[in-house]
Each structure stands twice: as structure tokens, then as C-alpha cells.
């Protein structure tokens, strides 16, 4: 069945404008046992879900522009005042005030360290990363939280210095637009489409 007209969405004046097809129906097939007895049916489906980033949209837009954005609680009366959050938190988890967006690209370029990591050949359905995947959890100077991502060059180890790279050429607008490479990696060695920001 053709999926050429797969749905696209715009937002105009606060409303979704849909174009194309958002689901593609397929017929069921029977499931039988070795004696030919009916046990069940297959239920195929293919659908496109519409997902909003809301207040996190600047973060995902930022990745494609080579920027790593975090947020900071600037509420003087909050215990977490001055805390920087990466992952980007729209609201402070303590006072629930609206956080201020801060550009953490330079901090990440200067002082990011692998807190822990793991390497796996196994992935779930719909994975698009090359295998094995090298997960790295990256800590930044002055940031209490630790961001999960993936290493695109070299082998990870705890304590290793890394720098961010960004899919600025053809962004997917997902977390996959951010990756990490060991400090000192040459531009020619990073994956196609990625830059240092």
C-alpha cells in the first residue's frame, strides 16, 4: 500500500492543519495452529501520531542550530535557585516557577565528562542508530543533573572528556541530533551531517 501521502502537520492560529493520510489500513490474516485450527488474527497498523514539544521546543530547535540549551531557576526564594537543569526543565521541580533558558553549549564544550556508559548490540524496533550503540551519561561542571546521550566516535570510559556534536545539516528535531565525541576529535572523523556547533 502506498504511503506516499503520509501526513504532515502545520499549526496555524493555534490549530492543527493536516495534509495527507495519517493511517494506512491493511487486511487481517488468520493465525492457525499445525492442525489448521483458528487461534487468532494479525492486526496490522501504520499510523502517524502528532506530538507537541510545548515549552521544550526551543531545546529541540536549538540542537539543529548547534546549541545545547538548559534551564535555570532564578527564583530568589527557591532552594534550587541558580540550579541549572539539563535535561531542559520548563519549570523548576521545587518552586514550579518558569525557568530561564540558558545556553550551555560552551560549558559542554569545555567541561563535559562521562559519568557512566554502556555498549549494546541489542535494540528495540524502530531504532535508527548504528549498532552497537554507545550510551554515555554526561555530567557538566556546575550542573547537578546528568544527561543521557550517545557517543559517535571511539570507545567510552568513565571520566572521559567529551564534547557535543550536533546534526545541523539535516536535523531530525529529536534528541538524536545531539551526540558526543572524545575531546580532540577531528572534524573529519565525526558522522556525516554533524558539526561541532
Amino acid at each position, binding site marked *: 500500500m502506498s504511503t506516499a501521502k503520509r501526513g504532515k502537520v502545520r499549526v496555524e492560529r493555534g490549530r492543527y492543519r493536516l495534509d495527507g493520510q495519517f493511517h494506512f489500513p491493511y487486511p487481517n490474516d488468520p*493465525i492457525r*495452529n499445525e492442525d489448521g485450527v483458528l*487461534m*487468532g488474527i494479525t*492486526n496490522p497498523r501504520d499510523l502517524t501520531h502528532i*506530538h507537541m*514539544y510545548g515549552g*521544550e521546543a526551543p531545546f*529541540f530547535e536549538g540542537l539543529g542550530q548547534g546549541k545545547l540549551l538548559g534551564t535555570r531557576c532564578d527564583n530568589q526564594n527557591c*532552594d534550587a535557585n541558580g*540550579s541549572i*537543569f*539539563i*535535561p531542559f*526543565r520548563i519549570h523548576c*521541580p521545587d518552586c514550579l516557577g518558569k525557568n530561564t533558558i540558558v545556553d550551555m553549549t560552551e560549558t559542554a564544550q569545555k567541561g563535559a565528562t562521562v*559519568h*557512566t*556508559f*554502556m*555498549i*549494546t*548490540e*541489542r*535494540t*528495540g*524496533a*524502530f*531504532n*535508527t*542508530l548504528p549498532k552497537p*550503540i554507545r*550510551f554515555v*551519561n554526561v555530567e557538566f561542571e556546575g550542573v*547537578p*543533573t*546528568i*544527561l*543521557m*546521550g*550517545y557517543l559517535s566516535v571511539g570507545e567510552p570510559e*568513565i571520566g572521559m572528556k567529551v564534547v557535543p556534536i550536533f546534526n545541523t545539516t539535516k536535523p531530525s528535531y*529529536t*534528541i*538524536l541530533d545531539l551526540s558526543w565525541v572524545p575531546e580532540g576529535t577531528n572534524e573529519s572523523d565525526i558522522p556525516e551531517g554533524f558539526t561541532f556547533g
Partner: protein
Amino acid sequence: MIKFSDKQLKIPQMQRPVFLVTGGMSKFDRSIPEKRTEELVIDSFVEAAEFINKTPAELKEYIHSCYYGHFADHFGDQLLGEAVIHDRLGLDPLGNVGIKTGGATGGSTLWEAFKAVASGYSDCVLAMGWERMDEVPTDEGNNYIASAADKDWETPLGHIYTGYYAVMAQKYWQVFGKEEESFRHTMAEIAVKNRGYARMNPHAQGPMDITVEDVLNSPVVAYPLRALDCCLMSVGASCAILCDEKTAYELTDNPLIIYVSAGSHTLRVADRRDMDIPLLPNESPDQYKDLGERFPGGDRYPGFTSFLAARMAAYYGYRMAGVVDPTEDLDLVELHDAFTISDIQTYEDIGIRPYGEGRTYVESGDCYHTNPHTGEPGKLPSNLCGGLIGCMHAVGATGIMQTVEVGQHIWGRWAEMHEDQSKWDRFGRTKPDDWTNLQVEGAKRGLAISHAGVGSHVTATILVHPDHQLERNES
């Protein structure tokens, strides 16, 4: 640094005691194509009724409200599946509600059921959990499970939950395991133990007679985790009946007192912030001062190495039930052994061993039914049903199944429920020639932990024989 208020740390106070009257479970397997979910649910309910010599219809007459644990609508492919189950059990028009807290769904279902009785709303409730994970291929199953991680920040990274978990395992392995071969060996022992115990359990889907070498030679999933370190993907159901005292003694002459408590922590490990270690009754404030010296990198709490949610479930639960030292005060435990290494981490979170020393619970032989070093009964046997590694992880059912297993030991009826040849035949399984009775002799008190993902939700369910209660402890 995060701090908690006194109000948040209040020890839960129930309006009246709550009793576990009976429980049951279906067969568990990787796939059960010949049965619908509701048939498995009915199998477990019938077992619970028969356990107290009632017909299902007789038991149903007592039930006043129902709590249904089912982790994933994705897997069931049926929204509002709870209403289907409720109707097939013939329990309309009773009030019922679905409960979803990932891997802790079974425990959370008991938590809701417990509070419904403790509050006086209901005198008798059904807690029923199930999962059907066989209607998609394994890689799509892994994608569904990964959908329980943060969909924007984590799921796109490989669509593989094991990966989000394994980074924690890696940190624990390096900091507290010090990458020692002996530690890796200890992890493997857990896999051997739990799969071995599963051999005595007709319900269990993953029984194996294996050695430490077999575990160490199994394929790497995410180093240091290997295939045999990991839990199963399952189909099945389990249930429990909770009552107030009067109703409990109408249904049986031998109900058990039940306590359930719960804790939580961030869905993304990435969001964790540092804090002081909340202390359990058997710990002292200065005990962890030098943790970072003894284990370099281990001074960040809970960091990537500990489960705050498990710690808090034990924090509330032990004080409610009067448990001071779990190894002394409990006779057996069922832990959420999703991975061998998370089993070790949990020993520390729930105070079986201090932080940093979890491995000694296995190495001492305390965690065995029979201590392999001394031939004497293990001090605090764990996961005699086989756990998630050997028995099953039909997510919504797991925490309930493990609670029922603990109950069967305290009731002294473990052998009756696991030995019967007709049950082995009914499940199409061969009872091993060396079948061994794993009943913990004289068991009076036990604990079951139910745990979600990287530690977003954890519950602690404590069962106590009414003649062996401990004194509530608020300190």
C-alpha cells in the same frame, strides 16, 4: 541537595489492620497462544478461591471493590482492558480501577487495595494483575517497554530499556563492584540460584540447571550484563484478596497481616539530584561518612548506583511494620531481580546490607534456602519462586505473584502449592526428579519488593503472621 519535610516523611497510619486472606496465580510462559488474558485471570482467581476452600462464586460474594494492575495498554492492545477483565470475572457493578506504575504495577495494585481496606471503604477487595507480552515480536516488545522511558529524551536512543538501565549497572559495577571478577561471579550466582529455584515451581517459565560459568559465557547484552543476568518477558496473571480483620476470619482461620508502602524517583535517571541518604532503622547517621573513600565515586547519593524509591518504600514500610533489621526480623524476601546487578543494589536500598556491601548477602550464603557454605537454613532466603529471572515477569502480575509466594511460606503451604503432580501435568511441565521442598521452615514474616524501570516507583509489601507482630517504630 534535596531535602524532605517532616510531613513528607510521616510514617503512614492506617485506620485499621489489613489482612491477606488468599492469593493465586496462573501458569506463566513466554507465550500462551491458547488462552485469552481473561482465561489466565480466571485461572488465578480460581486458585485463590480453592486455596481457602471456597468456590469462586462464594469468594466473589465478599468482594466490595477491585484493583487491577496492568502495565501496558500497548501490549494488551485494548484500552480499558480492566473493564473487560472485571466483566469476565462477573464482578459488575462493583467499583474498580486500573493501576499502572511500570514494573511496580503489581505492588502498586496491592498498595491501592491495602489502602481501600485500611480506610474502611471496603471490607474485602480483589487485587488482580496481569500482562500479555506475547502479541508482538521481541524487538517490538522492547520498543513498547522503552516507551515507558521518556519518549523525547530517552526512547529514541535505541528503543531499548535495558540500555537505560545498564548505564546504572555499569556505574555500580565500576564503583562498588570495582570491576572485580569476584563481583561478576557473585552476580552470576544470583542467576544460577534463581533459575535453580524456578525448577521447583510448576508456574515458572524459566527453570534452568546451570552453573556460574554458563552465566559468564552467555551472550553480552550490555557489558557487564549477559543474557542470563536478565529477567524474562512473560504472559500470566496473579491475584490477592485483602480484608479487614472480621471479614478475614470469616473467610479463613489463618489470614496474614499485610502492610504496603511506596516510594518514587525521577523517570529519567538524568534528572536525579544529590541528597543525604535517608536512613533505615538499622543504620546510623555517621555510617556512610567514608563511603566515598571506601568506594571512590560512591559518595554521590542516590547517583546512578542506588534506588531512592526502594529506600523510601522500605523507610515507610519497615517503620509501619516494626521491622528494625530485615535480616533478623524477616524470614524470607522476594526481590525484583530484573537484573542480577539490580538485585544486589536493592539489598542495600532496603537495608539487608549497608550501601557498598550488597554482594556479601550472596557471598555469605544468607540469600539461599540452604546456605551452601554451612548446609544450614539460609538466614534470609530470597526469590525461592525463581524471581523475575527464573519464574516470570508478566509485569502487572509480578509484584502480586511474589507476595502470594511469600504468603505461602508463612502459611506453611508452599509444598502443597508447588509439589502437586496434577498441577505440573496441567501446565504441561515435567516435574524434576530431584524436586525439593523449598518451604522456609517456621516462616513468620516476609517482604516482597516491586520495582519499576530505573526506579521510578517501588513498593514494599510486608506480610506478618498475626501471632508474631512487631512493634510499630516511628524513629
